[in-house]
């Protein structure tokens, strides 16, 4: 766990990653709050908060008395959301660092091409 | 505000709460039951050996009667009374902080401990009485030995049973007071208590001496007789029991 951010946010992101990565299929049941808590060694209330965050976002939904399931279309929506953030979270710092080091956008592109063919 | 909104355990009755303290004291009966009888048993065996040596070396019937006369002042069983004082001190100083961690009130703890001491007194006085009856029936274990029928234990089994019982109560509750003082004020408290008791004894003795009252004291105990005199100890026992509770009621377990 990363110390700088609330744990429940990190739990939610972890579940999102698992959905994006295909580990948790749409319409499949996800582990219970208590299972999350035991696995990540965190307070169950914190795990619940993380799961509720995903319920509010429509990524997960509750089936009464049965448990929590991945919503249909959740994967596509999560990918779209992550793409929106990609530029701000990854490109902006990359460009800032490149500028600091005197790497031109042109050089940067060729670096990316080279890295991609590895 | 009501308290019903909380998830709590099923309430217990006073009887259950006091009863479980008694059980706690008996959880490991070794110190309170096992060890004292083993020590008493070994003292008894040593006495048997001594009686046998005397019995073997003294042969005439009249001399043997003299020996038996002398043995009636045996103090061999006194140890067990003093040991009970130690048992009481240990029981309280160690189980008190332990029991409070189990969510026990001082009041329930003291009531249960008191009941435990009464039960132990009954067990020990019954045991000693049975032994004294056997001692009588076997004519001093066949050798004129006397350990449980010493003169200061009275005459006849009923009287002995009573005197044993009252004697045990006395030592248990004196021990209980000492332990309570120790639990509350540690060693300093005990030192103060002993100094206080010492001063009291000296004061009473001085009073008796200066008022030439020793005769009166002697006459009092003479009139009261053995049973009456020992019965008066119940007053001290009761005072010690109440004082022990008052001290323990405000004690905090530490260390």
């Amino acid at each position, binding site marked *: 766990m990363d110390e700088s951010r609330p744990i429940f946010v990190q739990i939610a992101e972890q579940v999102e990653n698992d959905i994006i990565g295909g580990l948790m299929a749409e319409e499949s049941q996800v582990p219970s709050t208590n299972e999350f808590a035991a696995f990540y060694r965190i307070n169950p209330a914190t795990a619940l908060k993380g799961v509720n965050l995903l319920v509010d976002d429509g990524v997960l939904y509750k089936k009464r008395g049965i448990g929590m399931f991945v919503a249909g279309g959740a994967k596509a929506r999560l990918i779209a959301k992550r793409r929106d953030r990609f530029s701000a979270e990854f490109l902006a710092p990359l460009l800032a660092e490149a500028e600091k080091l005197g790497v031109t956008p042109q050089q940067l592109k060729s670096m990316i091409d080279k890295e991609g063919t590895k | 505000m009501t*308290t019903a909104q909380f*998830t709590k355990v099923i309430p217990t009755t006073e009887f259950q709460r006091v009863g479980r303290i008694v059980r706690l004291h008996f959880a490991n009966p070794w110190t309170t039951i096992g060890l004292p009888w083993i020590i008493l048993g070994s003292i008894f065996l040593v006495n048997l050996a001594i009686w046998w040596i005397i019995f073997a070396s003294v042969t005439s019937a009249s001399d043997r009667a003299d020996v038996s006369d002398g043995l009636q002042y045996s103090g061999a069983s006194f140890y067990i009374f003093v040991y009970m004082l130690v048992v009481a001190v240990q029981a309280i100083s160690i189980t008190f902080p*332990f029991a409070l961690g189990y969510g026990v009130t001082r009041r329930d703890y003291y009531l249960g401990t008191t009941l435990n001491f009464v039960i132990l007194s009954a067990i020990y006085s019954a045991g000693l009485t049975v032994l004294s009856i056997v001692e009588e029936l076997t004519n001093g274990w066949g050798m004129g030995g006397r350990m449980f029928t010493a003169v200061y234990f009275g005459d006849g089994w009923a009287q002995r049973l009573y005197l044993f019982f009252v004697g045990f109560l006395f030592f248990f509750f004196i021990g209980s007071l000492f332990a309570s003082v120790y639990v509350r004020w540690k060693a300093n408290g005990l030192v103060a208590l002993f100094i206080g008791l010492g001063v009291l004894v000296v004061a009473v003795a001085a009073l008796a001496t200066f008022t030439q009252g020793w005769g009166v004291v002697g006459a009092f105990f003479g009139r009261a007789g053995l049973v009456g005199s020992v019965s008066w100890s119940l007053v001290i026992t009761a005072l010690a029991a109440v004082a022990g509770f008052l001290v323990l009621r405000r004690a905090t377990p530490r260390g």
Partner: protein
Amino acid sequence: MTAVIEVQHLSKHYRDVRAVDDATFAVEENKIYGLLGRNGAGKTTLMQLLTGQEFATRGSIRVFGESPVENAGVLQNISFIKESQRYPDDFRPRHVFASAPWFFANWDAAFAAQLIEEFRVPLNRRIKKLSRGQVSAIGVIVGLASRAPLTFFDEPYLGLDAVARQLFYDRLLEDYAEHPRTVVLSTHLIDEVSNLLEHVIVIDEGRIIIDEEAETLRGSATSVVGTRAAVDAFVAGREILHRDGVGGLASVTVEGLDARARAAASAAGLELAPVSLQQLIIRRTSTSEKEFEATA
């Protein structure tokens, strides 16, 4: 929310020592609380007050809505496991586990047996002969298996190794999830337990200096690292928790940086480092120590 414990202006003085000094807080039902602070900060005294073992100098305590002092109706719901708990001299662990169920209505014998196995407690050896860690394990097992509605663990793991402590945390979390109850865990090993806690109360010199949800505290402070001039310019006007420096570099811990402030810090070439709960508490307690000295 129902408060299992409500404390108002509570003080406990021993001659000239203020072990607990005007404490006011509440503990809500079925949450895990961390009672954190340095050794001698007043944690044990506070728990003794809450369990009716110690008598308050001033203030009021309500546990399950009533005063806990000599109140069997309240106390039978409480399990208080103390650091270096003493056991009767002649007891063996089996005597402890045999007698505990008489006092704890919710005692789970199967769970206790499982824990005895996992912590490898020798049932038939005299407690006097056990290692420090084994004695601590007895307390931990009683505290867990008793399932008391209100359970206090006061530094329960003296002598327990890292493996056994992790076992304790894991079993506590699992069992708490299945059987919710109020747990107050007092410790100075803050980093180890910080993820278990839902709420944190920090006591220092007898005073409550933090009373906050754990998630709110997490990330509430940030260390700003960079050249002295740049750091000073950035933190001007902010509340400084801690300041450190070497040569021309400075590291200053401040509270509550929002996204804009973070962006500004990056733009100014400053590095931002997260502050763990433990660091945060160390910094807060040393701050108040200085304040204390200043007013003394």
